[in-house]
């Protein structure tokens, strides 16, 4: 069961502003889904290793060779706000 305060905490962690009505709806929906998925809490998983992937188990590495970077123009092209040199963001200190 997820309660209102947990929903608010999770929403904050996930940086999702949610309305007051949405808190209750989400609490109910998430609780319903968790009830279902909690089936797996009944399984005996002692000694079972977790799998982050299922096919290849170890990877390969990239040689330390440079590629061409994007031009600044291209890098900034889709940004909602720039000063021509960088990405503008609201001040981190203020607000919530």
């Amino acid at each position, binding site marked *: 069961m997820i309660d209102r305060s947990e929903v608010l*905490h999770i929403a*904050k*962690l996930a*940086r999702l502003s949610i309305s007051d009505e949405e808190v209750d709806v989400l609490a109910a929906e998430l609780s319903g889904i968790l009830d279902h998925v909690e089936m797996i809490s009944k399984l005996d998983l002692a000694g079972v290793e977790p799998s*982050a*992937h299922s096919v*290849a*188990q*170890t*990877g390969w*590495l*990239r*040689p*330390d*060779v*440079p*590629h061409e*970077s*994007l*031009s*600044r123009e291209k*890098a*900034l092209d889709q940004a909602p706000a720039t*000063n021509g*040199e*960088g*990405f*503008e*963001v*609201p*001040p*981190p*200190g203020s607000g919530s």
Partner: protein
Amino acid sequence: MIELEPVIGLEIHVQLATRTKMFCGCEPVFGEDPNTRTCPVCLGLPGALPVINERAVDFGLRLGLALGCELADRSIFHRKNYFYADLPKGYQISQFDEPLCSGGFLDGVRIHRVHLEEDAAKLVHSSASGRIQGADSSVVDFNRGGTPLAEIVTEPDIGSAAQAREWLSLLRTTVKSLGISDVSMEEGSLRCDANISLRPVGETTLGTKTELKNMNSFRFVEKGIEAEIERQRELIQSGGTVVQETLHFDPRSGSLTALRSKEEAHDYRYFPEPDLLPVAVGPEMIKAAQDSLPELPAARASRYEDDFGLTAELAQRLAFNGDLGDLFEATAAIRGAGSDAKLVATWVNGEVSSRVEEGSDQTVEPEALAELLGLLEDDKITTAAARGILDTVIEQGGSPAALVESQGLEKVGGGDELSAAVDAAIASDPEAAAKVAAGEQKALGPLVGLVMKATQGRADGGEVRALIISKLAGS
């Protein structure tokens, strides 16, 4: 009043000098125009994926070997999830419970772990003009974002601010000798945070610790830790309790300020990075890292003892501070086998190290130092003059011999110039002269001082004394 002892652990971030970033092929170059070294991967664009830089892993292994760590044969990258403007993906790819290297030891301090991660981008806060009433903006530059970092975490085995500084210096030397980083605190390729707590002497449990950040020079590391130890000591002894928090040291004012505490507790939601598979460190990789290891500081120190006859203490002082060790070796080599290496060692450890901030570019070249010590050894200049020349050379560069020539700094001795100066001194202070003549040694001081002043320190003190005594004895 209970006696308290500091317990200090360090967390050091070392930017690895690979050619490309940790997870993409962009080449970070210090001082480049903003946002010209980026790609979909290090900008965190939708669909882009990280691929691990092989050389970063190799550098991590070298570091682990140099610190006597155990190397994991399987190592995993995790995502550390949090939002910030300098973090393009909303998570940092780092390592969590399966780091590349764990355990280890360096000069009395245990190493907890060494792991690899990616650096954050640079957030420049600026109050922009032309925007609505005083609203300020921040601008992100992703050039640095994604640069490989090795994070070294020590156990809390350090007992003082001075020890922290010395140990950090040894670590820097070690990393530098490995050729894996520029280790410049100024440029941010070496960064140090400290965890500090106090406990009653004899206790084994740790007190509440604070984390001290942003100490960007060796001197500030020492001053910052010292300031925090004092702050905690006063707090505890006046009946207060230390609160776990992150502090920022302002080197100019010497003050400590708490960084804005986040309302929510940190919950980084670490989980294995699904875009990467575990790294299998094979025997070939370990062998390659082993083969690349240079002479480490401890071995260097014992070589100085054996080859140059230095005392253990002096040898360690030089070997554990790589800049000093390099200067010593280079200078001794220029001066050749027959020369007095101990003189070089003493000068490097004393005169040079007191004048040069560790890691600074403003230092003396070995050629100049060799020349200077040659002049000193050949009795061409006095020690006092040599010190003055060293100041000038460090500040302005140039050749010591040329300075002696152009400024007339050669030692005054034996000849008429010194004799005349002594005569003038005796004449100008007959009272002191009379006392010396009567055998009162204390009265020599003012006379010697007069001579030194007249010769601008170019005379040898012993010689001056002897000359005064002999002149007055004969009178």
